[in-house]
């Protein structure tokens, strides 16, 4: 495997972890509104008993892991490649929000995410 490909895989892992970190923070912030209950039901895991603070701590821990993975990815990739690829977390968050939080992600929201994604590619050029 070439260093670039390794870097891309590590970066995708970082983006995935960051997207989950955001979901965990969201559940922590809205536990009283059934966030944990909904996540547990949709993800098929028995995590409904975790406290709001527990979800926040889980989110922070995921962020620490994400920083480590992103730093590792930068070891293999140029920032001009890593920066726009990192914005894939907007896509990851939209997918996970729909899947696990039951949020309505319609065509217009997807269009917005798409514009941001292409925009970050241009900013990095």
């Amino acid at each position: 495997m070439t260093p670039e490909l390794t870097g891309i895989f590590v970066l995708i892992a970082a983006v995935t972890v960051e997207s989950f970190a955001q979901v965990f923070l969201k559940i922590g912030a809205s536990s009283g509104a059934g966030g944990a209950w909904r996540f547990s039901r949709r993800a098929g895991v028995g995590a409904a008993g975790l406290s709001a603070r527990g979800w926040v701590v889980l989110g922070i821990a995921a962020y620490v892991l994400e920083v480590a993975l992103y730093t590792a990815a930068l070891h293999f990739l140029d920032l001009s490649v890593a920066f726009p690829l990192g914005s894939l977390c907007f896509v990851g968050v939209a997918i996970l929000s729909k899947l696990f939080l039951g949020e309505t992600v319609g065509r217009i929201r997807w269009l917005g995410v798409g514009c941001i994604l292409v925009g970050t590619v241009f900013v990095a050029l």
Partner: protein
Amino acid sequence: MKSVDTKLTEHSSGLAGKQAGKPAPLPAGIPNHGDEPRLPGAVIVGLILAVVLDTIIQLTWKVAAASVPRDASLAIATVGVLASPFFYAAMLAFGAQLWNWLRVLARADLSFAQPFTALSYITVLGLSSRWLHEHVSPTKGVGVSLILVGVFFISRTPFRTDHPDGPEPQAVDPMHS
């Protein structure tokens, strides 16, 4: 973000003046949520604060990292970063950002709020070019425009999904539960 208020008000009031008694038609692609609530002021302030804090974090982090020589070992780099007051400014901003972000997420959908943080790409680019006198190329200008258009599209979508299937909402402070 002022436009969000206007748009949502338009949705809830509809074209009542023109078509009395009839529901207002919505543009294609925008779901009809009936009495769409206005975007709360707390969410607007929270999103603005999130972009400001994100910008402070990125700039202070960059200045702290720049104080370390490029060829420094990991130990020297760590000591160098820890000796920089900008590192502590970044940490302080991180704490404030977490507090602010949880308040935003308690009120708005994650898939609505999170894309707004892309605006910090623009503020960082703008401030870097001003301070470092860097020329912003036309390509970067196109990128900035696309990010703005993307955030604009998202601001036109409902900020919160109603969940009729879930437990009744309760007020919970995640920092003190």
